[in-house]
């Protein structure tokens, strides 16, 4: 946030710097051009003024020289007037020439032809015809130029005056040094040669398109237009390239000349560049200060506030709906804080409302699920033949585990432990479906394998969610201890034989339910004996993880079972659960925890059909009566009933052969009803069919026997006989609420 802001601020400041620098550059460049133009123009004007002065000076000198030459010619004329013989005196003429400082001295006749000259060997020269034709007295001075030996032009004056001594002309050539110096000063080209502008600049003097003079610039081979310079129409040039060097140019009209002053751009910009360098450094410092000042101000005024708001928002998004935004550094932040606080408050309300609704629904679902799990006391009235305890602790309100147990008939108990692949309400619904199918199919007395084959087909049907369930299912025949069971992909249960150790019951595993509709399931059988115990569980037990990511595992389960294995089922389940919680520590419960413990403890007594076995029967009844807290009267009756039935079987059932008798005692305290079930494989015999003995006879005729069946009938509340599978099954029920009679 802060970095992003600084980045943008930096970009803006950089842009401002660039704009400012560009502006400065343009202004400084324009100023430099202007200054250069003024400078060059002033220099050019000064030069022109100097030239003007030189010309004036020259003219004045020329006038003086003019008069002076005439005067000297006059002197010679007078000299000849008075010393005419001098014409013939060459030596004298030479002396006069020196005195008069004339370079040549000629004396001509009236026709202008030279008659005498000094110096002596001077080539003859005639007076021009115009002079000859002039009306006397002639006084003419004609300046003329000539090319000197050094190539420069010099001024020489030719003076013609009329002779005083004779007709003719005195013709002097006079060369004035001072005049020539003055003349030199009037020569614009010479002037240009030495004229400089700046260190590397100079001037070009042109007439028309021809460059007359190039000073130090060496451009004589070009024409003016070839350099991009125009004749007289433009007064300044921003860029003129000569010999690859760029110049700034200013042109000025002077007489018939076009004078162009040129200054190299490098010189022109030198000062500008220095100034710009200085300005850049200054700007950099200025803009840095501005950047840091704005940055600090914004951080103080805005970023701190935004960070405060962000910190509050982070707390809120991480789940703390009671966090408040409290930034008061500006009215905007106060407004923002208030807005956030009221939004979060409304959100909190909405969430807690939704949470309450969801919680209620889950509670309802959990209650439905709990009500679907049978309570252990639903095993009555045969609780003392098999003791069963089951518990399920869901990891969430509604779990995916379940257990079930129910009677198929008087002697067959079905039980199961299952784990649905998912959790929550969908899993609970699937669980209900699985539970219902298994129960209803089992109740219709199908074999476990058939129950599962059919239940699986039903569960696969319409199972769009792809859920499945693992089940361990068993049907126990209490009369024989025969257990038919099936393991559909579930954890192997543990079996503890009476006085033995817990061992995993590893059946051939079958496929999970609800995935492949055409699977055939297979059951296995084993026989439970008195005192055997089965421990069924789900993977919520073995796969519970502790803080070290370690699983509880089968070994720990086995150890815990060995430690608490002799406890009654309910206590054992509590201990195992306690061990799990201790192991789990601070880690959460990951999965539903389900345990089902079944103790097979049939109250069945098996005897040989011999009278000597009677004490065992009596002993057995003593024990069961004591265990069920039945009174002495009831016990006495039961003892009599049992003895009569037993003796009857001993005497008649097997005739002379050996045989056995099985006795089972059941007691249901709720309806205070005790039952004795006698089973033998002897000849069919229904005691109900025996007619009552005659009790009216006196002692003499009274038959000593026949009272057994009579006593039984008298002492029981009901008697039920069945002949089943070649066995006599006699069920005698005695209510214990009150003694009969």
């Amino acid at each position, binding site marked *: 946030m802060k970095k992003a802001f600084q980045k943008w601020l930096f970009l803006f400041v950089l842009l401002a710097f660039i704009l400012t620098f560009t502006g400065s550059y343009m202004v400084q460049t324009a100023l430099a051009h202007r200054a250069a133009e003024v400078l060059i123009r002033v220099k050019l004007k000064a030069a022109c003024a100097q030239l003007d002065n030189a010309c004036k000076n020259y003219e004045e000198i020329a006038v003086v020289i003019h008069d002076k030459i005439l005067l000297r010619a006059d002197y010679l004329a007078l000299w000849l007037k008075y010393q005419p013989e001098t014409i013939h005196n060459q030596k004298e003429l030479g002396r006069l020439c020196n005195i008069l400082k004339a370079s040549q001295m000629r004396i001509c006749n009236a026709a202008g032809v030279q008659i005498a000259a000094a110096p002596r060997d001077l080539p003859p020269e005639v007076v021009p015809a115009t002079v000859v034709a002039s009306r006397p007295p002639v006084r003419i001075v004609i300046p003329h130029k000539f090319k000197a030996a050094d190539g420069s032009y010099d001024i020489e004056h030719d003076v013609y005056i009329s002779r005083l001594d004779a007709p003719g002309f005195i013709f002097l050539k006079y060369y004035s040094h001072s005049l020539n110096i003055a003349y030199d000063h009037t020569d614009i080209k010479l002037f240009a040669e030495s004229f400089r502008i700046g260190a590397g600049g100079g001037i070009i003097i042109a007439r028309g398109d021809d460059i007359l003079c190039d000073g130090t610039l060496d451009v004589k081979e070009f024409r003016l237009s070839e350099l991009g310079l125009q004749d007289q129409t433009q007064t300044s040039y921003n860029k003129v390239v000569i010999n690859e060097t760029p110049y700034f140019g200013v042109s000025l009209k002077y007489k018939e000349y076009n004078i162009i002053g040129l200054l190299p751009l490098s010189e022109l910009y030198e000062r500008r560049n220095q100034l710009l360098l200085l300005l850049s450094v200054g700007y950099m410092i200025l803009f840095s200060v501005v950047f840091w000042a704005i940055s600090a101000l914004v951080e103080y005024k805005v970023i701190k506030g935004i960070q405060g708001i962000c910190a509050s928002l982070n707390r809120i998004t991480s789940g703390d709906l009671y966090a408040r935004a409290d930034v008061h550094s500006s009215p905007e932040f106060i407004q923002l804080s208030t807005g956030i606080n009221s939004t979060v408050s409304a959100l909190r309300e909405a969430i807690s409302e939704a949470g309450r609704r969801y919680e209620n629904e889950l509670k309802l679902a959990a209650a439905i699920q709990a009500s679907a799990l049978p309570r252990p006391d639903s095993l009555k009235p045969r609780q003392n033949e098999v003791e069963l305890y089951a518990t399920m602790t869901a990891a969430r309100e509604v779990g995916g585990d379940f257990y079930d147990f129910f009677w198929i008939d008087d002697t067959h108990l079905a039980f199961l432990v299952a784990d649905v692949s998912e959790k929550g309400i969908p899993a609970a619904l699937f669980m209900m479906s699985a539970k219902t199918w298994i129960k209803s199919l089992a109740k219709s007395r199908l074999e476990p394998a058939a129950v599962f084959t059919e239940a699986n087909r039903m569960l696969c049907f319409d199972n769009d969610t792809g859920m499945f369930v693992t089940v361990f299912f068993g049907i126990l025949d209490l009369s024989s201890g025969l257990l038919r069971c099936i393991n559909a992909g579930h954890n192997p249960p543990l079996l503890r034989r009476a006085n033995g150790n817990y061992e995993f019951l590893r059946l051939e595993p079958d496929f999970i339910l609800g995935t492949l509709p055409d699977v055939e399931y297979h059951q296995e059988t084993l026989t439970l004996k008195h005192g055997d115990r089965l421990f069924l569980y789900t993977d919520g037990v073995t796969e519970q993880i502790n803080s070290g990511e370690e699983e509880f595992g089968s070994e720990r389960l086995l150890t815990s079972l060995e430690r608490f294995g002799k406890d009654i089922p309910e206590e054992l389940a509590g201990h195992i659960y306690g061990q799990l919680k201790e192991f789990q520590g601070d880690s959460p419960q990951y999965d539903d925890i389900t345990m089902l413990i079944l103790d097979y403890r049939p109250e069945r007594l098996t005897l040989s059909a011999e009278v000597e076995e009677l004490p065992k029967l009596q002993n057995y009844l003593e024990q069961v009566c004591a265990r069920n807290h039945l009174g002495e009267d009831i016990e006495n009756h039961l003892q009599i009933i049992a003895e009569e039935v037993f003796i009857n079987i001993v005497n008649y059932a097997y005739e002379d052969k050996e045989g056995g008798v099985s006795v089972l005692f059941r007691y249901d305290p709720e309806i205070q009803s005790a039952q004795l079930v006698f089973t033998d494989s002897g000849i069919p015999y229904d005691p109900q069919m025996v007619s009552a003995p005659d009790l009216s006879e006196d002692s003499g005729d009274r038959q000593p026997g026949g*009272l057994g069946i009579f*006593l039984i009938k008298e002492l029981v509340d009901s008697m039920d006989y069945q002949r089943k599978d070649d066995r006599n099954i006699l069920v005698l029920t005695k209510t214990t609420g009150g003694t009969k009679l």
Partner: protein
Amino acid sequence: MEITEINENGKLILQLDGRFDALASLELEKKLGKSLKGINELVFDFANVKVIASAGLRVLVQTKKQMSGQGAMKIININDSVREILTITKLIKLLDVE
């Protein structure tokens, strides 16, 4: 069942202790077969008899029949349970219970 015999000049008192069940009946039958000779008064002391089954009743009826030719037989000190059985079977008068 323990059986204690007290023989006082033709009067035999049998003190019974325990359950008068089928096994006890067999034992008593054996004993009486030897001991009843010359006895003119037979007393069954039931003070310690908890319960009686039909086998016991059968022995008592048989003995009563046997004694009818040689003397009196009576049963004393019966508890409620035994009395109940004797009442149901209508033997309480026949067996001369005190």
